């Protein structure tokens, strides 16, 4: 196709370019104004200085970044966020892989129904989905009551790291299942059957055949889950309570309660940069021959 285009007169290519511009520029214009400009502004603001009276003073300083890395409180919040993100990613992959495999290899008419059940939670706000966990974990909630009935002592899990991790796992798990499922779907089941007919046990045929072929998809699922967990807002806010701090709620708090725009901007940049560096680095963990 490109070879053909190269032989056509120049005017044709020019007309193509003009048509492409006409089709794409309105959307690009809106994204530039409402996404690129705001993000550039956040970068610029992160270099400004905060003043209790004037709020923001134009400057060109790295003081906000320095303050973040030198204050043990903020470093601890970043560490908590990373810890929660890692834990949820590991749990999501552990629970999600078997689910994805089962779904991909399902052939009955229930498959469509099961797929819809996995898709549905993706489109229900994480706020709404936290209601169920709050019923489970709350004082006088389901787990508290069960524990009192069994052991005589109540068990309150609300405002614990465990509650936050479980909440985020339940929000992210459908993404992981869907991503991995679509990858496994592309692997011909006959390849597995071939392995098994040659004497490989089901477990072995999974690890030697499906796992390497699905690895790129699994990596994408893990990265997606990690990004979502790093940016979680509703879950730590509602299940973590006031003392369990993660980055996203803290950025909002610094922005609205303290009115410290420069520092909030710097925190947003630090959060995005940390996520970006780690997700870019994680693709190096996949052996080169398996990279998709």
């Amino acid at each position, binding site marked *: 196709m490109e070879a053909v285009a190269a032989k056509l007169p120049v005017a044709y290519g020019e007309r193509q370019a003009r*048509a*492409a511009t*006409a*089709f*794409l520029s*309105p*959307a*690009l214009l*809106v*994204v530039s104004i*409402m*996404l*690129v400009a*705001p993000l550039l*502004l956040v970068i610029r*603001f992160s270099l400004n200085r905060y003043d209790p009276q004037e709020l923001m003073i134009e400057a060109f300083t790295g003081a906000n970044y320095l303050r973040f890395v030198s204050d043990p409180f903020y470093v601890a919040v970043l560490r908590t966020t990373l810890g929660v993100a890692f834990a949820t990613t590991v749990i999501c992959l552990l*629970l999600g892989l*078997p*689910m994805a*495999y*089962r779904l991909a290899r399902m052939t009955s008419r229930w498959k*469509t129904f099961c*797929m*819809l059940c*996995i*898709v*549905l*939670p*993706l489109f*229900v*706000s994480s*706020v*709404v*989905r*936290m209601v*169920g966990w*709050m*019923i*489970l974990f709350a004082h*006088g909630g389901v787990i508290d009551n069960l524990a009192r009935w069994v052991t005589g002592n109540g068990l309150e899990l609300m405002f614990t790291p465990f509650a936050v991790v479980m909440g985020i796992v339940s929000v992210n798990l459908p993404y992981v299942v*869907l991503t991995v499922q*679509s990858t496994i779907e592309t692997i011909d089941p006959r390849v597995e059957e071939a392995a098994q007919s040659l004497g490989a046990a*089901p*477990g072995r045929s999974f690890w030697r055949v499906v796992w390497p072929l699905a690895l790129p998809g699994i990596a994408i699922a893990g990265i997606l889950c990690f*990004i979502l967990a*790093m*940016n979680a807002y*509703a879950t730590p*806010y*509602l299940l973590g309570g006031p003392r369990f701090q993660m980055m*996203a709620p803290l*950025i*909002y708090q610094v*922005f609205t309660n303290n009115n410290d*725009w420069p520092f909030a*901007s710097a925190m*947003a*940049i630090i*959060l*995005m940069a940390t996520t970006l560096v780690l997700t870019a680095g994680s693709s190096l963990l996949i052996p080169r021959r398996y990279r998709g």
Partner: protein
Amino acid sequence: MRDSWRDRSGRVAVHALVVAGAAVIFVPLVLTLYLSVFDEPLIVFPPHGYTLRWYARILPEFAAPLETSLWTAGVAVIVSLVLGVPAGIGLSRYRFRGRDGVATLLLAPLTIPGVAIGLGIYVLAVMIEERTEMALSGSVLLMVAAHVVITLPWVVRLCLASLANHDRAAEEAAASLGARPLTVIWRVTLPAMRGGIVAGALFAFIWSFENLEMTLFLTAPGVTTLPIAVLSYLQYHIDPLVAAMAVAQVVLVGAVLLILDRQVPVARALA
């Protein structure tokens, strides 16, 4: 003989993981449904009765934010379609330098943290306000414009997908028979994209309706969306009313997805 003890225990472990995963996703939803019919003002086990009266109270309690959410999502979807359908056609038809960059940029709002987008849009609005004295921050206009950015990727993505297997021959035939370029798009390209456009619009609508992180920065007194109203409600009380609200949303989204699944296989559109 091959069905050794190791295989069997492996199969049991896999089965346990599947059950655990399903429980993590669905137990909270089922519990929400259960609580929503409690005839108690708070969570008390066991309740002294069951009632549906909480469902009747949803609308009076959440009418204002619900209205804002519906308006915002509706207008944002229309604007996204106007911008996104041509963008999808452009991306699928033409091969030009920087095409990958353009596609990445248009889809970027799906992966950039909502907190960063919201923060940026708010400070940009305040900057413009200071220079021009337009009342932007806290306005419905700003809210809609911001929601256009996060809904646009869905429209572009699903339009692109619907054109992936589209045969340009039909368009060329129409053009060679004398149809003008716009007529070709209207009579040939758009009908071929119908499924993608419908799916894109519905996903975009739900995406806007459920957005929390970005919208947080754009609310003002009187301009609050439903997820934010629910969030601030939940901060102080967890009761059957908010559970009923949650169930109603799950049921509505489920119904939309069921309708959608007849147009395009929903799960495949996402992956």
